[in-house]
């Protein structure tokens, strides 16, 4: 239903664009571009699973995408990307429309540009979310999970709706504003993240409001951003009465604020990002709302060193706490214990030290290797680790990735 209405919307948009385009249809191919990429990963962990059964080595991570853009008129851009992502038991590789949009550049000058977008839009938050699945834009194989928590990916991937953007240059600085409003993705992965598993009911509608303001040096020597987003998801429990301990009908509220800063010096790039996420389950009830509201807090610090035109190193340290007032997860464990449920407090936090190397033998190829030393299991997918009690607190992850672009 949702994708049908989107396809319909885009059909109308493309038709409209074609009708208003100048008669020189013979020049169309010059206005059409296609690009894409293929990424294959390999993950090996000593404990806990990520992207499949990584404890015995997993190749179960693959990203394929093809995108096209077309400028029917100088102020209109139609762009879309079809993507398949296979990631353990989280994403099954079925092709999805990653984005499909009509962009109207309403005003375009040397100093300011602004426009409107309609369709399925990427969610602008932090430095990396809009292109989080594109290996060439990631500083490492796994994006900093503290901010770009893979379990959060589906909710923050895209929205079906409208957006406004304005770019400005003044006093030698760029100031870019992105606003997006619409319905976010609401699939089983979102239930796993916010309800702890595949629930009998589902999130049947939702609304997201997202904004990002970025200040940067025009030559990309540094940039700083603040991103604010708010998601309201309506949960329909289906069952009446709702079984004990399960969530009932109601709205889940998630509010996210991200602060980002990046600066380059010679061959170095330093990045820091901080996230505060307020999660409010109080309308839903059930075991997930034993503590009805929590503040997730996380940050990371990252240094990239490009020691030749083909090689780079990345060193990163980050911490994430699902409840910043209960960093060790012990209150959570005690609350569940009162109900006679055993739990693993390490699932409430994670501290990750990452060391990685990247090699780009040609502009079309990128190979990466990295090692993670992790304490805590917060960002491990429950789909690949069905039993919380089996989670190990201290674990190591080794990862390889090859990607090709065209």
């Amino acid at each position: 239903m949702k994708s049908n209405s989107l396809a319909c919307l885009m059909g109308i948009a493309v038709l409209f664009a074609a009708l208003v385009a100048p008669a020189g249809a013979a020049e169309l191919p010059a206005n059409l571009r296609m690009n894409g990429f293929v990424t294959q990963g390999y993950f090996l962990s000593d404990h806990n699973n990520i992207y499949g059964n990584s404890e015995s080595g997993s190749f179960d991570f693959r990203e394929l995408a093809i995108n096209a853009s077309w400028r029917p008129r100088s102020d209109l851009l139609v762009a879309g990307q079809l993507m398949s992502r296979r990631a353990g038991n989280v994403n099954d590789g079925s092709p999805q429309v990653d984005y499909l949009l009509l962009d109207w550049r309403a005003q375009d000058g040397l100093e300011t540009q602004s426009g409107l977008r309609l369709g399925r839009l990427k969610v602008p938050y932090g430095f990396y979310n809009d292109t989080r699945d594109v290996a060439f834009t990631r500083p490492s194989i796994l994006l900093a999970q503290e901010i770009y928590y893979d379990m959060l990916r589906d909710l923050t991937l895209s929205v079906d709706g409208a957006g406004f953007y304005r770019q400005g240059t003044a006093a030698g600085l760029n100031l870019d504003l992105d606003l997006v409003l619409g319905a976010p993705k609401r699939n089983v992965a979102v239930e796993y993240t916010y309800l702890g598993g595949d629930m009998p009911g589902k999130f049947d509608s939702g609304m997201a409001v997202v904004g990002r303001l970025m200040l940067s040096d025009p030559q990309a020597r540094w940039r700083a951003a603040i991103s604010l987003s708010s998601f309201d998801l309506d949960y329909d429990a289906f069952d009446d009465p709702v079984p004990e301990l399960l969530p009932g009908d109601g709205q889940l509220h998630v509010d996210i604020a991200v602060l980002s800063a990046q600066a380059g010096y010679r061959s170095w790039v330093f990045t820091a990002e901080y996230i505060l996420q307020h999660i409010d389950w109080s309308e839903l009830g059930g075991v997930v709302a034993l503590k009805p509201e929590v503040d997730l807090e996380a940050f990371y610090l990252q240094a990239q060193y490009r020691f030749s035109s083909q090689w780079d190193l990345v060193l990163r340290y980050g911490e994430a706490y699902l409840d910043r007032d209960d960093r060790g997860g012990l209150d959570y464990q005690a609350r569940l214990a009162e109900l006679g449920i055993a739990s693993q407090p390490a699932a409430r936090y994670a501290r990750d030290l990452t060391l990685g190397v990247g090699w780009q033998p040609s502009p079309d190829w990128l190979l990466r290797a990295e090692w993670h030393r992790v304490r805590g299991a917060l960002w491990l997918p429950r789909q690949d680790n069905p039993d919380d009690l089996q989670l190990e607190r201290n674990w190591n992850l080794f990862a390889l990735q090859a990607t090709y672009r065209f």
Partner: protein
Amino acid sequence: MGYFLRYGVLAIVLGVLPTQSLWSQVVIAHPGVQADSLSPAYLFSLFSLRARHWPLGQPVSLIVFEDQHPAHINFVKQDLGVYPYQLRGIWDRYIFSGAVQAPRVVDSVQDMLYWVSHTEGGIGYLESDVGDIQGVRVIEIK
């Protein structure tokens, strides 16, 4: 020792001076583009895919060599003041979120001249030592 010093100085003079002076780039555009000169800031705004129109309204269409092409590397470093991988990073963030259209990539001087002279609002670059440049407008950067 004297030989080393002499040849060392000679090597530095031969090696460094030409790359600074002779390998300058020429920015070229479609003859319909009404601009004889551009500021470095405007040039960067065009090549970082921010502005989509020329002041008189033609669409901006970038035509570039591949990332590892010497003319591209020299142009990006000298005229834009960044490394090719930094420019690629800016482009990829826009291209893979559907915000802009990717530049047209060509692999020969002939193709560069063809596409710049046949694309309304087209802009590209050449190394200065390619000889006569016909059918395109040469733009000074100042």
